[in-house]
């Protein structure tokens, strides 16, 4: 049994086989593997007796349930209007510069994925980005660089 299969089985035994368990199972997989692989979605469909298209349909509805491989750290920059007005473009440019990737891409060492997100609810303190589950408000280019370098340092140690 592959590690993904074991993980799905564990999650299903924790949350149950009803359709309601689909969300927590999907979230559990993303937490462990950072995205939902084809293999994972097929195992989930089998375990919960759903069609694979149904599982994929649900996953694709949610921005935070990725269906393509992601880096170890996922950076999401808010792209909605308040953050746009306070300079989110400059933040994205800075991130693209440091990470050497464009929005939507993952760094070569699989350490970072750079994404944009819809409103993160921090309109009063934009521009804002989310790294994994951590929020970083009131960003400036230099502050952004500092934060990301911190993550880079942690990755090498």
């Amino acid at each position: 049994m592959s590690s993904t299969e074991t993980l799905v089985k564990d999650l299903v035994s924790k949350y149950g086989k009803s359709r309601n368990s689909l969300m927590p199972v999907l979230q559990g997989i993303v937490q462990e593997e950072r995205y939902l692989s084809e293999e994972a979605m097929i195992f989930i469909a089998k375990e919960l007796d759903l069609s694979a298209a149904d599982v994929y349909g649900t996953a694709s509805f949610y921005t935070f349930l990725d269906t393509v491989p992601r880096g170890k750290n996922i950076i999401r920059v808010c792209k909605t209007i308040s953050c746009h007005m306070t300079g989110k473009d400059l933040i994205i440019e800075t991130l693209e510069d440091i990470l050497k990737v464009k929005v939507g891409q993952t760094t070569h060492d699989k350490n970072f994925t750079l994404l944009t997100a819809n409103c993160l609810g921090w309109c009063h303190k934009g521009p804002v980005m989310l790294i994994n589950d951590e929020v970083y408000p009131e960003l400036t280019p230099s502050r952004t660089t500092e934060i990301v370098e911190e993550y880079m340092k942690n990755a090498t140690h």
Partner: protein
Amino acid sequence: MSKYLVNLKVNNIPVTVEEGTTILDAARKLNFHIPTLCYHEDLTVAGNCRVCLVEVAGSRSLAASCATPVSEGMEVLTNSKNVRSARKNVVELLLSEHNADCTKCFKNGHCELQTLSSEYQIGQHLFIDLVKTKDKIVDISSPSIAKDDSKCIRCQRCVRTCSELQAVGALAVINKGDHQRISTFLNKPLSEVVCTNCGQCINRCPTGALTERSYIEEVWDAINDPSKHVVVETAPAVRVALGEDLGFEAGERVTGKMVAALRHLGFDSILDTDFTADLTILEEGTELLTRLKKALVDKDEKVSLPMFTSCSPGWIKFIEHMFPEYLPNLSTCKSPQQMFGALAKTYYAQKKNINPKNMVCVSIMPCTAKKFEAGRPELRDSGYQDVDYVLTTRELAMMIKQAGIDFMKLEDMEYDSIMGESTGAAVIFGASGGVMEAALRTAYEIISGRDVPFTNLNIVPVRGMEGVKEAKVMLKDVKPEWGFLEGVEVSIAIAHGLANAKKVVESIKNGTANYHFVEIMGCPGGCIGGGGQPIPTSPEIRQKRADAIYAEDEGLPLRKSHENPEVQYLYKEFLGEPLGHRSHDLLHTHYKPRKRY
């Protein structure tokens, strides 16, 4: 339990309906037509297209009449200024995301969205065209179904059909907002997912987003090629539905007119799939008796019972995907379409002195899965592809219109021989329960020497639209050679629609049901409700077609498959005996397990 009655007014006219009735149904009771797109009688309510909006007095916003139950004292307006303008806006918005290339569309003239925009005189688009160029790439990976996302209005009738009626779930809603689309697992092509090709989604698609793959031009080319001998076969359910696309009411039997039209179209031999339906009964009936003998007399534990019928290609692909462990339970008989093709290019070609190389076999089917079936690599036992082209009932109607034939005025004509004769038992293959009834009429007589113990051969318990039907037949006073069946109560089941098929197989799997013989048809109502039949479909229309099938059966002089003289001649001249060597080569096949995911 009697329901409470609710009084309301629709367009100022009082009406009383049962509690729980929707505004839409209450209005229909008063003959007020409210347009709908996402609503379909066969499916659960979705309420997402918003064209059925109505005004409810005292309510700030307009209500979707298909999804709003009536309440006491409600006052509804279905045609106020507000309603008209909102409805027009909704249609305009839908059109802004719809590839309105109507003149080039397969559904031109049969499209619900087109009809609505004509009713509301949508002229110049009010909103900008938002159709994405990448959506204009049509998925033609399947030999049965074409999927054109640029024409999709995301009403989700197909999604509900695929999961609610068919328990397949090949289609789902993917992404959200303006990225939302109807797609498959990881957006794979239809040919690579669990799709059974049943075409029920096509029957319910209000636009041209889902259509059959059309082979009309290929068939015209064959007809126009003087070096080809084009043989055509017509399935049982086509004759009770074709008329709907050519001016008749649902339930009109047009067998003779259809034969005449096929002759006018220029087919060289006009033959009947009903002939091989009769043949199927002899082969499949013998196979069932052989299995029962092995189980009861030889105590062979490896024999697979219950035996499942194998006529419906949607069902075959379904079981290959979903329950591959039950493939040994499928009858090895090819479907009547494929038995026909294999015999046309051997027996018929020989008898009529035609080189099978120059023969083109076209079948007219109520079905889209038959298009896939005809292309199965294992179905080439004549040495050629047994069936070359499969057209749906709708495609045949289109050809008849193209040829300028005034169908309603045609004089009846007869099928050609030696594969055109059939019995009432073959005709009823088109309705759910029909194969079972035909098999019982023959098997009971073979075993006991008597007619089945039902008035006028009508085995009523296996008929009707109930999803799963069960019956038991007691075998008494059997002929000496069938002594092992004396006192055996044969237990049978019938299911139509793949969601019901799933229920039956699961009940067998978990041991709650025990049958000897199970008939399964992939489509609701059986072939009369097939994915290739005229659109629209509804429980009422399917009932009318089924009634027509049984009327056709009652009107025929021969009503038991084994009495078909041309089938008897076929065995005498060519096949020998049921399950004989030649039958085995030409009429039986095998199946392959497929992935469910």
